[in-house]
């Protein structure tokens, strides 16, 4: 559905995208993962014919973005990071306008407007001004705008940015529901989002391709060694972090124990297991048998930075603090 070869985009002073190649099969949801400024938006803008590449080619639905931009545009729905809404328009007016410039008219336009309103749950705000909508509704109207002409390919730039957790969940569900009839590329800098919604993942950093793989393979590759967060609480009296640390390290299959922080008398540790070992049961038993309470035990999500560090192991910059972007799953 999408073939990108040797794509490079240079601005006056910077190289935003540097020689990227990848392809996306029909009907897949692909996560485009990378930190801010990695070149995600630039790549998407090339795919949507918003800007031409400096070098390389990109084909969408069999049409080249340079040779047949009109044909590509007919087959692509695009939701930029900020939904492109006209504040002085009502929702219906807006959908009507967008439908028309995307080539719909008459009864079909009406039908599609109703369909996408239903699908994106914006039927209750039809006559509201776009400028007065909340962030969540704006995002949904933006999505409705992108799918109104029933495009083969859907390109979504950070579709969940700035939404509250409930809205994020709804948006993800919506996107998942769209897969099948549409090929979807969505960009994000949040790893769990890719895990939850996408089948394949394309990781880029500083304009360069880091990895393309299925989400399953990738998590496998990354999670050969599992990282667990363990929180231990004292039964009575205080806890000595060194003592707990020693006890945890003594469990069979644990390769590394690191003390993270102490809060309200409880202590938090990060425990890394040897590849392929499941140690949760043993860890729990060790804690309880030592006369302490096990307060928490879960897999720690890897932050994006850690992934980049692992994937680009070549430049081994040790001692980098993982930022809490991934958060606890």
């Amino acid at each position, binding site marked *: 559905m999408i073939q990108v070869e040797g794509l490079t985009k240079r601005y006056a002073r910077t190289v935003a995208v540097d020689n990227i190649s990848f392809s996306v099969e029909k009907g897949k949801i692909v996560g485009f993962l990378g930190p801010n400024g990695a070149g995600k938006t630039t790549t998407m*803008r090339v795919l949507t014919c*918003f*800007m031409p590449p400096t070098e390389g080619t990109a084909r969408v639905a069999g049409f080249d973005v340079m040779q047949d931009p*009109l044909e590509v*545009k007919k087959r692509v729905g695009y939701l930029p990071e900020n939904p*492109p*809404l006209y*504040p*002085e328009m009502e929702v219906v007016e807006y959908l009507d306008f*967008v439908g028309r410039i995307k080539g719909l008219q008459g009864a079909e336009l009406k039908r599609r407007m109703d369909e996408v309103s239903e699908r994106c749950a914006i039927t209750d705000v039809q006559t509201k001004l776009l400028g007065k909508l909340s962030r969540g509704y704006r995002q949904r109207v933006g999505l409705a705008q992108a799918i109104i002409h029933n495009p083969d390919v859907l390109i979504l730039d950070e579709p969940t940015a700035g939404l509250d957790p409930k809205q994020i969940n709804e948006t993800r569900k919506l996107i998942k529901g769209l897969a099948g009839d549409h090929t979807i590329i969505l960009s994000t800098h949040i790893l769990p989002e890719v895990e939850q919604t996408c089948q394949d993942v394309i990781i880029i950093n500083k304009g360069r391709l880091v990895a393309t793989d299925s989400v399953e393979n990738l998590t496998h590759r990354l999670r050969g060694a599992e990282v667990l967060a363990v929180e231990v609480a004292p039964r009575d009296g205080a806890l000595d972090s060194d003592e707990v640390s020693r006890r945890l390290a003594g469990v069979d299959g644990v390769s590394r124990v690191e003390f993270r922080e102490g809060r309200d008398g409880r202590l938090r540790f990060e425990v890394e297991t040897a590849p392929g070992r499941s140690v949760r049961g043993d860890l729990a038993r060790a804690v309880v048998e030592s006369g302490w309470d096990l307060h928490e035990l879960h897999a720690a999500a890897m932050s994006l930075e850690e992934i980049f560090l692992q994937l680009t192991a070549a430049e081994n910059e040790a001692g980098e603090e993982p930022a809490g972007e991934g958060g606890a799953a």
Partner: protein
Amino acid sequence: MRNVLVICRKELNSYFASPIAYGLMAFFAAIAGYFFYVATAIFVARGMESMMMGRSFPMDVNEWVVRPVLMNVSVIGLFLIPMITMRLFAEEKRSGTIELLATSPVRDIEIILGKWLAAVVLYACILAISALDIAVLFLYGEPDLKPILVGYLGLLLQGAALLAIGTFLSTTTRNQIIAGTATFAVCLLLWVFDWITAYETSTWAKVMSYMSVVTHFESFAKGVMDSKDAIYFITVAFFGLFLTARSLESLRWRA
């Protein structure tokens, strides 16, 4: 063509959904009405004068009222044009909606023509208000209709040309104020270029004067349709739209 009309309709809707259109119309109605009043007052006073002196040479309404009013309207138009065109592209660039237009299956030229056409239609609506003033003349006198129509054709051509320049300048920035100010500066220059001939007669002064819109509108105001002047306006309109297309294209490369 369908796309042009879709975009044109959308632009007109947003002109009339905001106070811009009404504000411009009110502003114009007041000023054009004032000039019309002054012109008729002078006409009436002169008419009385010559009657009292016993002279009975016929006074021409077209010459005494219509022509000065049209000339004034032409100059007021120069002030309206920046306010009509400044938002056309600058606002889309600022709010990011340009991404929607640029990734929809429409050609750049269709976007440009649609927006420009909407500006011309709004300008024509505003001109129509001054036509109401002129219509009053038909109630009390017998002005000649044809020169009036030619005059309005001239106003429309002049507007179309300057609106094209304004559209171009609007693509160069994301700040409406800058777009408006630049357009106003160009309109003002194209007006005052004409004054140069008052104290200079050399070739460069003639060239300057030729570039002025006022020079070219004068014959229209007299009711004379000179192809030279029509071609001037049409050329400027084409030139403006051409620059707009180039500017929009370069935007994509630079983005």
